């Protein structure tokens, strides 16, 4: 609802009185007029306010004052008196600008003097009458939070046997919804229940409960504000956003993940109450109601946003428009000195494009096709190829039996098998041969198709599908022989640039089997259980026994010769007897320098039974794969990988269609840690007693598409509205606008001009000398901007 604010066409305008009060502590009852030489300072004209600038965060209010000391005329006595310099640095001040019209209200401002400079004139002929000018700068109360560093954290401790819940303060500033150091560090860490009016951090490092911005702000305002010597808050701070209020909706529609380490409370507030989400704030001292004995002084954190209309983000989320909208009519006001309307074309966007992190895809595939032909290793159906050369393989195989130049080592044959084995192991340890049978590379010609690797899994799909921006769109990633369909479903990915992540996006404590990924919501651990899920490392598992031909009874149970699988880094765990067990180990690693996978058996040839040609070089049984239940990497190994998708999570919304169809000016917004992690059907995420456990449906384990879609929609609403900034200067100082009010338009009668920007600064100027005071109203959206 927009109201019309008409600036009175007053012909005679009075100059307001200004009174400055000071106090050692911030309490309404403590403020007394500034003590100047024992006389009534309200009548002393030597302390005056030059400028009071009240601003929305992240800016801090400032009040510049000036005081003349020395031999001054006291109007009360009519005599000159020696006025001493003021000592008011670090004191709180209350500035009252009197009303000049009966219908107005006084302008009352609170701050703290933090700076003084002095101009020293001299001490007079007898050196006993010092004189000079003092210049003071007071900052608004938000500055108090800029002096308070976050050094500790308050946890919700419900483990005590004597009380249900306790606050437990620890060193270290825990970030909101982050677990620094993890591969995917975003996680909830809020307590399940609130305590004494606000939520606390969970006792463990992760929790299924996430902070929203409103809860995080309330926590900060209760536990990380300036304290008195007894540990109590020096003054209470309150978020003025009751539950279900429009203001609270400003903070509840976007997720927060904010670091607190080495930051002040103000810095954290600036990020939580995020200008880049169109919401701003300012602080104001609210003195206790003298008629209410239970009321107490407090500092309120007030919220506003810059949108005129409500924005429906989803079925359950609505971002309310600004609650104080007005049309400013000053067409006939005498006292308007300047009214500048600026139209900044750089913010005229045709498209909003919101970006998150790179998407990921997770899938299981056999390392090569089922009919691996050593003579055609580059067959496009093979996902992996050898990461070593034939020459390296030959040197590896022959090892110590040949010299560096390839000639036979004459002394080799004379050695015992044990000595030969030792010599060979030493030769194969060479850095030049370190890749042999260890490093596997994504096939440069890979067709990027994945086939369900196990019996009964027949679906073939694109490893890197086109994932639609619209979260409500149902995607089909199944392979099609129709080139047109393929073009729609398959991303263009250069195999040489595929990036394999060292961890899967899946976590080891979660059950993703069957259709659980789409059907259930996977949260982090329960803080009471204190079980911390870990991301599963890249999985390589092997077919270790069984024919692979399953025989099942009528109930579907395996009854005969079932295939068995084991993770290669846990071989032997499933050994049935000595003959089928393995006395060698294996490790898996993903180098970060390319599309590589390192599978290192010890010794390496144990997973290359057919590639490893013994010839005459190896006679020790301990080194021969055939004698140690060796595996064939191309026949037996399967991998579950998480790969980086070539596209970032993104959502594009068109604000206006350019005449030529070419996007003219795109607004780009980056949302850190917004993720989209897709898991394909038939991805193996665990091996249970030799049986791969798979998700049959696949799906998104983390899908922030709706989240960035909300941001894109809100941003499109913001930029879809034509905005201008208004700079209005009036030759009077009156309480006619408040920070955060949205000026919809000016010039209501004849030439309405749309403004649609909130008031971000109000400035009162009292020039020295015999000049009229003036005020300035500024609206802006650079202070409140999604980019």
């Amino acid at each position, binding site marked *: 609802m927009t109201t019309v604010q008409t600036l009175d066409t007053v012909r*005679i*305008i009075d*100059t307001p009185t200004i009174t400055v009060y000071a106090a050692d502590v911030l309490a309404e009852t403590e403020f007394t007029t500034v003590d100047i030489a024992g006389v009534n300072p309200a009548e002393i004209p030597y302390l005056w306010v030059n400028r009071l600038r009240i601003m929305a965060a992240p800016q801090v209010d400032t009040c510049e004052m000036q005081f003349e000391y020395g031999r001054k005329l006291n*109007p009360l006595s009519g005599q000159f008196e020696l006025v001493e310099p003021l000592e008011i640095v670090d004191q709180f001040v209350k500035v009252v600008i009197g009303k000049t019209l009966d219908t107005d209200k006084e302008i009352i401002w609170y701050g703290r003097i933090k700076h003084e400079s002095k101009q020293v004139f001299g001490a007079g002929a007898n050196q006993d009458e010092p004189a000079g000018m003092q210049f003071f700068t007071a900052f608004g109360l938000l500055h108090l939070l800029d002096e308070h560093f976050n050094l500790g954290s308050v946890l919700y401790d419900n483990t005590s046997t004597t009380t249900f819940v306790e606050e437990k303060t620890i060193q270290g500033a825990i970030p909101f919804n982050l677990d620094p150091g993890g591969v995917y560090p975003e996680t909830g860490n809020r307590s399940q229940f609130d305590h004494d009016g606000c939520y606390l951090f969970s006792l463990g490092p992760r929790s299924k409960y996430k902070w929203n911005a409103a809860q995080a702000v309330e926590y900060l305002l209760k536990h990380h504000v300036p304290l008195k010597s007894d540990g109590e808050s020096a003054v209470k701070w309150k978020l003025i956003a009751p539950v279900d209020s429009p203001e609270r909706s400003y903070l509840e529609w976007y997720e927060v993940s904010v670091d607190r380490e080495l930051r002040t409370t103000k810095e954290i507030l600036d990020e939580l109450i995020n200008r880049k989400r169109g919401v701003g704030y300012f602080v104001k001292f609210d003195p206790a109601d003298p008629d209410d004995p239970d009321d107490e002084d407090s500092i309120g954190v007030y919220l506003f946003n810059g949108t005129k209309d409500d924005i429906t983000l989803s079925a359950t989320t609505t971002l309310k428009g600004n609650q104080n909208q007005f049309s400013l009519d000053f067409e006939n006001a*005498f006292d308007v000195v300047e009214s500048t309307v600026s139209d900044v074309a750089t913010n005229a966007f045709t498209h909003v494009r919101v970006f998150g992190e790179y998407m990921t895809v997770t899938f299981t595939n056999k390392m090569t096709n089922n009919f691996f032909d050593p003579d055609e290793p580059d067959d496009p159906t093979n996902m992996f190829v050898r990461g070593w050369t034939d020459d390296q393989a030959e040197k590896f195989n022959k090892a110590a039996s040949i010299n560096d130049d390839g000639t036979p080592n004459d002394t080799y044959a004379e050695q015992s098998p044990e000595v030969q084995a030792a010599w060979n192991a030493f030769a194969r340890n060479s850095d030049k041969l370190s890749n042999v049978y260890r490093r596997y590379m994504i096939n440069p010609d890979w067709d990027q198709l994945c086939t369900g690797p196990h019996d009964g899994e027949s679906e073939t799909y694109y490893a890197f599908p086109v994932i639609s921006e619209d979260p409500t769109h149902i995607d089909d990633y199944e392979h099609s022989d129709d080139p047109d369909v393929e073009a729609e479903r398959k991303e263009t990915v250069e195999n040489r640039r595929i990036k394999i992540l060292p961890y899967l996006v899946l976590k080891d404590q979660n059950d993703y089997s069957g259709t659980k990924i789409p059907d259930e919501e996977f949260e982090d651990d329960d803080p009471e259980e204190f079980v911390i899920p870990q991301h599963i490392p890249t999985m390589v598992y092997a077919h270790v026994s069984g024919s692979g031909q399953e025989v099942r009874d009528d109930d579907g149970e395996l009854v005969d010769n079932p295939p068995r699988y084991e993770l290669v880094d846990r071989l032997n765990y499933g050994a049935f007897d000595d003959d089928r067990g393995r006395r060698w180990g294996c490790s898996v690693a993903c180098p970060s320098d390319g599309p590589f996978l390192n599978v290192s058996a010890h010794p390496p040839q144990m997973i290359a039974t057919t590639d490893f040609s013994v010839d005459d070089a190896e006679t020790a049984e301990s080194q021969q794969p055939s004698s140690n239940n060796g595996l064939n990497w191309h026949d037996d190994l399967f991998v579950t990988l998480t790969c980086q998708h070539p596209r970032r999570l993104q959502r594009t919304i068109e604000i206006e269609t350019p005449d030529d169809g070419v996007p003219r000016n795109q607004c780009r917004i980056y949302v850190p840690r917004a993720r989209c992690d897709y898991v394909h059907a038939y991805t193996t995420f665990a091996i249970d007693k030799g049986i791969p456990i798979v998700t049959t449906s696949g799906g998104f384990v983390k899908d922030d598409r709706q989240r960035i879609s909300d941001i894109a929609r809100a941003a499109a609403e913001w930029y879809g509205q034509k905005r201008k900034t208004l700079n209005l200067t009036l030759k009077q100082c009156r309480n006619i606008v408040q920070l955060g009010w949205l000026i919809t338009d000016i010039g209501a009668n004849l030439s309405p001009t749309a403004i649609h920007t909130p008031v971000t600064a109000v400035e009162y100027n009292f020039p020295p000398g*015999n000049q009229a005071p003036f005020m300035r109203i500024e609206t802006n959206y650079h202070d409140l901007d999604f980019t």
Partner: protein
Amino acid sequence: MPLPIYSLGDFLFVNFSASGNDDGEPMLPQEHSEVIQRPNVRGSGIVRLERKGIPFEMRSMVDVDNEAAANLLVGNYYLAVGTDPLAIVWRDRDYFTTYGVKYFVLAVMATQSRVVYAPVGGLTAGNFVVRATWHLLPVEVQS
């Protein structure tokens, strides 16, 4: 008919008149204002800047007995500059008791000379007169 009393503080004068004023009456503090006008808006507005004095100039003349007295008076005139504001009695009217106004002496320029004619009247009927130009600022004081 007795002479009307003119005085500034303790200084008595035969004549004491403000420059640029037919009667020479001292100025009082008055409301200051600033005119505001805005393009394309009819009329004018005023910002009132409160009541305060404007520096003005007064001339005084007084006769004294002799040259020594004249020299002393000139010296005292200069000592009045920068002191506490002084009350003015002008044509028997006390501006402090009447208006609550005293006058701060910003500057003075005084001269003394011997009269060549036979003195008649005056305060002392002396042969010397002291003339001065006073730069004054009216200030409102409460006591």
